[in-house]
């Protein structure tokens, strides 16, 4: 048994998952997962429901036991340790506040179990940090959702764990409150310097708060990286669809040795940077995000040299305020989504107009054609757009 | 939802859902926890049933002692003599259950949907009489229905008793010592058992379903028939079982409010055990009653399974 190095209060520790697998009977929830979460970082596990992110979190907390693999916190092997023996605390999705204790006692719970001195002082400090001081003697059911969420956070934070786990803690809050809490959580994490591991299915939330995101799908990590990296440089269709939106064209690559590789889409030659090609074969899904596309009327000279171009007819337009969302139908029937920021409103671009789609080839990426174009799209959204499966 | 739960914790949420404990490694734990309770029930509920069955097949008398002879004829004899009491028991219990349903349902409905601030107070009022000795309450019915009491004299003046006599519910000018009195007592005793399960089922229902039905052109009566009633059925069935079964075996109401001509099977069993001292016959009758109840319960289980029982 390795000795755990004495931790400074307030410092996080590296969290290491090594080949962790969890199966429930035949169902494999987490499949040979290996991750290193550096100390002091704000790490997000992002993925759709059922991808294994919550199971992974519970294994780190000790509320589930891995079927195989190892979990290390710092140099301590905690794989089979009971939850109350781990320097880990969880902010539960449903808050799980003790209904029979008031807020003060809820927050003090962990301290009392650890027989810490000066409970009162520490509790008062954290209540101040989370702006809960006037509510100290109320019961949980007398608090609003946002207040309960902060109590759950305070209750976990006060113990200064090596790793703080957050299981979709903002899910039950309304939009404005959620945004506010996202910034607050980020601020608190910066201030206390603990390792935060945040589980969520909301990609915007992950990108706002986390330094590093691991996108999970069916028990595996699809891609790991900083939010910007994942967004601009997706390596699988799942990641490309799950974070933001993508348009995909069936294309064939040629001339792969060049810095800008040629991709042929329905006879048109388009360019994609070689550094953004993630496909062993030449058959690819050529991807470009809707906000990178520009619409102009056919015949206009405004498109810069070297930009990719495709022609189509505007099928639909929706004014969203900040932007306008267009659906452009290509000659071969495919619909392309375009987001244009409402800077100059070209009144000629209306449904029925013939337009040219153009974009900087640097914003293109090419992914393995063997992957499904629909991977990562919310199935309900898919049905609404494409129609229910036959 | 079972009545026991309804009786004690009426404002509770969903019952029955199994939540496995967090670290549930020791497979022996449930069996150890169960052991004392299950053992007690096994020894003092299950084994006596076998004793009863065994006793029903014996011959002999109280003075000379009983001998195990496997005499199944005990059953045929007992039934051929006492089948009228059996029939009467089921008929009375059936009528009482029906009346209970008719009285309890509006009460449960009112508490669930129309009571507002008074909900908890009303529930208290429904439960409270249950804790008063039911013997004493039944004796009170003796007073209420007594020959010279207000109720009897009023009904006599209004000639309502004549109608009831015509229907075979009463005899002479009396209300006491009549089938009517027995059924009234039975209905009264089991009202909480019918009200609370129905209330629990209705309480779980979303009242906006009724609004949706009205929005879709259904009248209040149709909304009830097509929406409320089907959704409350589980409670109705539970209440029915919890009323009919004890009512069928009751003999207190028959003894205190009825007359020898209106004896129920419970009275017969009691007298066979304690006055006639014919244990085998008494046991046979008792076991037959149990068997017919079991048939009912198994029909219910076939439909609803065992999870909702307890």
């Amino acid at each position, binding site marked *: 048994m390795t000795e755990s190095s004495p931790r400074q209060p307030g410092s996080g520790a590296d969290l290491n998952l090594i080949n962790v697998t969890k199966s429930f009977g035949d169902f494999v929830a987490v499949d040979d997962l290996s991750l290193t979460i550096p100390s002091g970082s704000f790490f997000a596990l992002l993925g759709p429901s059922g991808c294994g992110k919550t199971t992974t979190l519970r294994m780190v907390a*000790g509320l589930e036991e891995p079927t195989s693999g190892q979990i290390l916190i710092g140099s301590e092997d905690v794989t089979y340790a*009971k939850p109350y023996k781990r320097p880990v605390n*969880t902010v*539960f999705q449903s808050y*799980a506040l*003790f209904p029979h204790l008031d807020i003060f006692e809820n927050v003090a719970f962990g301290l009392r179990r650890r027989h810490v001195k000066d409970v009162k002082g520490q509790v008062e400090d954290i209540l101040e940090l989370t702006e809960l001081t006037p509510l100290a003697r109320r*019961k949980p059911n007398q608090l609003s959702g946002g207040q309960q969420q902060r109590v759950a956070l305070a*209750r*976990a934070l006060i*113990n200064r764990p090596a790793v703080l786990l957050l299981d979709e803690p903002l899910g039950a809050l309304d939009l404005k409150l959620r945004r506010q809490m996202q910034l607050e959580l980020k601020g608190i994490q910066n201030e206390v310097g603990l390792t935060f591991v945040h589980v969520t299915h909301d990609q915007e939330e992950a990108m706002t708060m986390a330094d590093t995101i691991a996108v999970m799908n069916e028990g595996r990590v699809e891609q790991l990286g900083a939010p910007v990296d994942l967004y601009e440089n997706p390596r699988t269709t799942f990641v490309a669809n799950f974070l933001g939106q993508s348009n995909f064209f069936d294309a064939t690559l040629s001339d792969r040795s060049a810095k800008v590789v040629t991709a042929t889409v329905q006879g048109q030659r388009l360019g994609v940077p070689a550094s953004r090609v993630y496909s062993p074969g030449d058959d690819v899904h050529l991807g470009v995000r809707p906000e990178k596309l520009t619409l102009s009327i056919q015949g206009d000279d405004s498109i810069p040299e070297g930009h990719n171009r495709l022609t189509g007819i505007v099928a639909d337009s929706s004014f969203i305020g900040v932007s306008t969302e267009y659906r452009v139908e290509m000659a071969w029937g495919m619909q392309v989504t375009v987001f244009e920021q409402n800077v100059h409103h070209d009144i000629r671009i209306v449904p029925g107009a013939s337009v040219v789609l153009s974009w900087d080839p640097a914003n293109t990426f090419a992914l393995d054609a063997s992957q499904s174009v629909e991977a990562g799209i919310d199935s309900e959204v898919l049905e609404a757009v494409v129609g229910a499966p036959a | 939802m079972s009545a026991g*739960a309804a*009786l*004690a*914790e009426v*404002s509770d949420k969903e*019952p029955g859902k199994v*939540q496995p404990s*967090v670290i549930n490694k020791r497979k022996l734990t*449930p069996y150890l926890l*169960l052991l*004392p309770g299950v053992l*007690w*029930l096994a020894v*003092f*509920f299950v084994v006596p049933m076998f*004793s*009863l069955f*065994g006793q029903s097949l014996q011959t002999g008398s109280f003075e000379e002692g009983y001998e195990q002879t496997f005499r199944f004829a005990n059953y045929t004899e007992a039934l051929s003599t006492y089948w009228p009491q059996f029939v009467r028991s089921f008929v009375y219990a059936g009528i009482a259950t029906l009346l209970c349903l008719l*009285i309890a349902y*509006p*009460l449960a409905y*009112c508490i669930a949907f129309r009571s507002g601030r008074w909900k*908890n107070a*009303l*529930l*208290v*009022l429904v439960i*409270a*009489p249950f*804790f*008063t*000795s*039911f013997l*004493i*309450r039944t*004796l*009170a019915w003796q007073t*209420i229905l007594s020959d*010279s*009491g207000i109720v009897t004299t009023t009904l006599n003046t209004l000639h309502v008793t004549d109608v009831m006599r015509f229907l075979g519910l009463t005899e002479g000018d009396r209300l006491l010592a009549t089938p009517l009195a027995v059924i009234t007592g039975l209905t009264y005793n089991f*009202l909480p058992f019918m009200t609370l399960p129905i209330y629990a089922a209705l309480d779980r229902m979303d009242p906006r379903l009724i609004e949706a039905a009205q929005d879709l052109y259904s009248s209040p009566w149709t909304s009830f028939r097509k929406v409320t009633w089907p959704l409350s059925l589980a409670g109705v069935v539970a209440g029915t079982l919890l009323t009919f079964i004890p009512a069928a075996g*009751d*003999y207190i109401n028959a003894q205190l409010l009825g007359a020898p001509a209106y004896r129920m*099977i419970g009275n017969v069993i009691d007298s066979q055990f304690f006055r006639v001292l014919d244990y085998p016959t008494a046991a046979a009758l008792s076991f037959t*009653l149990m068997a017919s*109840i079991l048939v009912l319960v198994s029909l219910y*289980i076939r439909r609803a*399974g*065992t999870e909702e*029982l307890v």
Partner: protein
Amino acid sequence: MSTTTEAPSKLAVTVPPARRPRGPIRWVRAHIIQIAAAAALFYMFLPIFVVVAFSFNQPTGRYNDKWVQFSTNAWTDFCGVNGMCESLKLSLIIGLLATLASVLLGTLTAFAISRHRFRGRSGINLLIFMPMATPEVVMGSSLLALFVTLGIPRGSSTILIAHIMFCLSFVVVTVKARLASLDSRLEQAAMDLYANERTTFLRVTFPLVLPGIVAASLLAFSLSFDDFIITNFNSETTVTFPIFVWGAAQRGTPPQINVVGALMFGISLLIIAVGQIVASRRRKV
């Protein structure tokens, strides 16, 4: 082309405004449920009124079924009736012991069924359900058959055994209902916050199940105190309070019986009301 909403048209002036339907019949139809409920409650409480009222009666004959005159005799001379107070004491003692035992056994059983998956679960569910569904005549007579076969004399101990038996199921059901509403994530949260299994049970699980256990205790006590049929079958010459009342029904009903009934009602009403207030106070701001 602009369209402006026109002022309320001339149409509204020519069509007479609809009248809100009123009238007594309408009122009755709208409130039929409440009326039926009130009638049901009246029906439920009528005997209680009679019981309380006639506890203040001074009957002339043996039976307390006709109002003679007001008197507080029964209340002041409470134990004046032969054997009543002894039977009360016995019922109380048996009630307390039966409650203790059945709550203990029943709570353990409820935990087992609620929290664990094991083989034979549906069989156990059925076993627990059966006493609640069996007529008391059958349960009483079968226990008698057992005791007779084994040669065990009937008395207080056999009564106690029987009471524990039939209270058990009700306790299980009540505690189980309370456990079901207990979020298991609370226990996970406790362990996440450094409480081991024992501390979690003592500080989180038990306080939250306690209301259910209290309710089960009250239920078990009243079932035991009030039981007649099963007790009668297994008591021989021992007299509990219900047996006393039964005997009184044949011999003569003194008003003191009504006093006990009135007290029982009053006390249980108080306890339930207090329980409800405590529970709602826990939920209110």
